[in-house]
């Protein structure tokens, strides 16, 4: 449902994505791994138009994503995003954060949305925290609210940019657990992550990005157990056995 077709992207004269080709099918979980600066976040942000790209084409269910397109807002309502630093609205409670999009962007009925938002917060284990402000929540709790906020839009896919990197180690598990459940429910997910264990267990496909190119892609277990390229092997050795 998400197709990358020879996508090129530069910041000024610095080319960050050098021709990306990939395909993400409906219900698939795809993990994007690679060294720092390889363009993972940039690629992810191109999918919902937070960044534009210069050449090639990204399409979602046949709709071309283009930063100048009038359909961009509509595309964003169908592809949600979860950020490394949560980015919850600090002046709204957990419940209000989750309700914001459906009520004000999709203009859905407030009472219905409220029910759904409560259910979603329950689903991510935060039924008790509906009226808390983000500042009163731990990082792990905030990220789970952010996932509920993304789900409230009833997206066809969710993009995750290192959702656990800003968390204290003891909170990583609770967030990954929520994502695992989403994957089991056949949510289409594109996840930038350094959690190799998570990638191995949950994802269908892993893309290894280096220097703006997809060096290797394939089924998670194969690619992570027996990478074909030296660069993939080096990278995996470094992240799994940090010195």
């Amino acid at each position, binding site marked *: 449902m998400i197709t990358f077709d020879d996508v090129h992207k530069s910041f000024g004269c610095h080319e960050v994505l050098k021709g990306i080709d990939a395909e993400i099918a409906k219900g698939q979980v795809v993990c994007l791994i690679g060294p720092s600066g390889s363009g993972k976040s940039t690629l992810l942000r191109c999918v919902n138009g937070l960044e534009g790209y210069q050449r090639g084409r990204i399409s979602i269910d046949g709709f071309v994503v283009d930063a100048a397109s009038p359909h961009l807002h509509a595309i964003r*309502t169908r592809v949600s*995003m979860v950020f490394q630093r949560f*980015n919850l*609205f*600090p*002046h709204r409670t957990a419940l209000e954060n989750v309700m914001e999009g459906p009520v*004000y*962007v999709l203009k859905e009925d407030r009472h219905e949305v409220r029910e759904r938002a409560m259910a979603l917060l329950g689903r991510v284990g935060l039924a008790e925290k509906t009226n808390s402000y983000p500042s009163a929540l731990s990082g792990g709790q905030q990220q789970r609210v952010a996932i509920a906020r993304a789900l409230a*839009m009833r997206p066809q896919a969710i993009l995750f940019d290192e959702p656990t990197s800003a968390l204290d180690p003891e909170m990583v598990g609770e967030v990954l657990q929520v994502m695992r459940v989403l994957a089991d429910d056949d949510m289409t997910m594109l996840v930038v992550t350094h959690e190799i264990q998570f990638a191995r267990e949950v994802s269908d496909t892993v893309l290894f990005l280096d220097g703006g190119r997809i060096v290797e892609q394939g089924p998670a277990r194969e690619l992570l157990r027996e990478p074909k390229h030296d660069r993939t092997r080096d990278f995996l050795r470094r992240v799994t056995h940090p010195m």
Partner: protein
Amino acid sequence: MSTFVTNATEYLPILLHGVWLTVLTTTLALCLATALGLVWAIMRTSGIRSLSVPARFVVEFLRGIPLLVVLFYIYFVAPDIGINLTALQAGVLGLGLAHSCYLGETFRAGIEAVDKGQIEAAKSIGMRRPLMMRRVVLPQALRIVLPPYANNMVMLLKDSSLVSVISVQELTMQGKMLASSTFDNMTVFTLVAALYLCLTIPLNFLMRRVEIHMEQAG
């Protein structure tokens, strides 16, 4: 001392009339300056050149002219081109215009200080710019802007004394007239100064309370 008290009780009702006009001028000018300031700030942060450039021009232009000259211009020059304003109207307009620049810059700084991640979060749930401003950016900018806004408010109140030059009979003007008719400069201007403090000090206090309240709201 007792003559001060007797004289003061005699002058106070006259001066209170001036206080009323000072409050009226300040309030109306503040409304105008706030509304216009918001317009300048939104234009300048819009990222659209045909909006940001004119806003910047207006702000730089108005900021470069002394408030007294702005007031004279509106009150004395405007009738020449067919616009007749009462002294109060001219005063409110001049004060409001001049202070809209300061407020505009204050608001702009507040808007720009909102975390970029907030804007990305708003965009990622499909918000268009006006909705994003209203629901995400401005409420957060408001908290950032409140302390400097309170400062601006006090400055505007003090600057309202300048509209006396175009014959608005606010507190300063009343004081000057009263002093020249009674020759009791000491009592009159002491009272005038005290009355200004009675307005500015509670204002500061009130704003501090609002700030504390907003901080507690999370």
